[in-house]
């Protein structure tokens, strides 16, 4: 199956090489959470929820987890693939070996943009659950998590977005869907602060020659820029709608 039609130059879902999928967001879907977002990028759907900052209960008298006490930007992340999220139902959910790795990438990224908590024992918990898995899960989780933090009103220095890229017959494709993921092509996902183009994390999948790294990175980072433009508008519109209800 040709991922890019030699006739039209379009991908299987009608996109061009340098196009990301459509993004949609709903904020505040889980009312009990301090922040939440139902995030969709193409057919990949992720629910991100945030709790905190709250008192983790560790105080000076506790023999608590010292790592938490000493880390002023304590954030715990979780990444889960729902059993029903893919074509074949996964019978043991949450045991995807990459889930823990992805969670660590998320923690690394958000630590960079978060401020130290006012209280040393405060903690933020962020969870991303994939409801529909159509590729680009880590990338979407990074973006969704940022949006959930924003929904919760937790101060951050800047935004983190994620994007994936693959390369087919020398052509880099940005924002990889699951159909494009099937063929064990080289793949990369980056977590980026788009405004200053800083790459915070990078994840690669399947082996590839080092010469491909530059074009893959380039495509992924450009994809992040596109993603940023979209979510920037989404967040501004969200503020406008919510705050504009009562302004004169």
């Amino acid at each position, binding site marked *: 199956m040709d991922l890019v039609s030699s006739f039209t130059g379009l991908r299987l879902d009608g996109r061009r090489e340098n196009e990301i999928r459509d993004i949609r967001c709903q904020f505040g879907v889980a009312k009990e959470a301090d922040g939440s977002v139902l995030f969709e990028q193409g057919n990949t759907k992720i629910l991100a929820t945030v*709790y905190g900052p709250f008192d983790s209960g560790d105080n000076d008298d506790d023999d608590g987890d010292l790592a938490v006490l000493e880390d002023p930007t304590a954030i715990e992340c979780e990444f889960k693939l729902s059993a*029903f999220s893919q074509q074949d139902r996964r019978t043991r959910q949450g045991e995807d070996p990459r889930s823990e790795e992805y969670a660590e990438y998320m923690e690394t990224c958000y630590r960079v943009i978060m401020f130290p908590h006012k209280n040393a024992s405060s903690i933020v918990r962020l969870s991303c659950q994939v*409801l529909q898995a159509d590729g680009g899960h880590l990338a979407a989780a990074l973006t969704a998590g940022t949006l959930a933090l924003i929904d919760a009103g937790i101060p951050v220095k800047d935004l983190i977005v994620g994007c994936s890229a693959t390369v087919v017959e020398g052509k880099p494709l940005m924002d990889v869907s699951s159909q494009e993921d099937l063929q064990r092509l080289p793949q990369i996902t980056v977590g980026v602060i788009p405004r200053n183009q800083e790459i915070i994390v990078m994840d690669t999948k399947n082996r590839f020659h080092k010469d491909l790294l530059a074009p893959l990175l380039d495509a992924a980072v450009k994809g992040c820029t596109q993603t940023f433009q979209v979510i920037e508008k989404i967040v501004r519109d969200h503020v406008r709608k919510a705050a504009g209800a009562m302004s004169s």
Partner: protein
Amino acid sequence: MGERRSAQDESVLQEREDSYINASEQQFLSEGIIDYDFRLDGRGPLDYRTIHISIGEVLSASGSARVTLGETCVLATVKTAIKTPSKSHPDFGFIEFSIDSSPLTSHKHDEEEDESRSPQEARSILQSVYQESGGVDRRKLCIVKGSKCWALFFDLIIFEKGTSLLDAASLAVKAALFDTKFANVTVVEDELDQFEVEFTDDPYDYWQMDATSVPVVTSLHKIGPVFLVDVTKEEQVAANASVVIATNSKGTLFYQNTDWKGSQFGFELNLIDEAMETACRAAAHVDSRLMSALISLPPPKSWKNTLL
């Protein structure tokens, strides 16, 4: 009236600001209900808040429904698969439930004070209602007796855990089942007398199960002598007993549980009758409203998961 925890029992209140009310608040709430049939938000004892259901949100599932009932929001998804039936029930299909409540419920580490509301208990009740007690007719899931059958995997996610979790979950299960598309299959017998199942190529060639007689769960909570439907968290705390039933449009009872929370008043026998009667009426009301709303929906598009 709910009993106040004695001050000696706990020196630290469990941190559930939004679901704890003290004796004075309980007294205020209870008096309105007992004396005037009037709840804090103006509802009567048998008034439900508007229930919202959204069907077909999850494209990777064969059927799905998200239900919002009060503060509770549950998503149910159905995945279908072909399996070999068990030897003890060669003409029955399978139904399996799983419930995921983390990380969408309270982050505060929950010591579940009431087992019947914990998700695992809910899971086994759903399993009992829909699978073991025949809430769903498993013969309809048979393809070739003794050889091939459908298996339904219900995965529930709790988006928000308020009260009446089982009620919301059962509505989601029923609506998701209503939405489930079974691809039409052809059975081919090979030279070894083995059966193989082939899926149709036509994405619009599917059948759906009639969900009319599928049961729903209804919970009632008692404050004084009054039974309430669709309780708020505060009302649940103030209640001294609860009744949970699973029933369907034919009046068949699939599950029942009465729990009088250890109050010294017990549960007078005549009240049990009244409770059951009220619960059945409430169930019938919700069930019929649900079915008439479902039937008036446009049909789903295709049985194929649009992802692949």
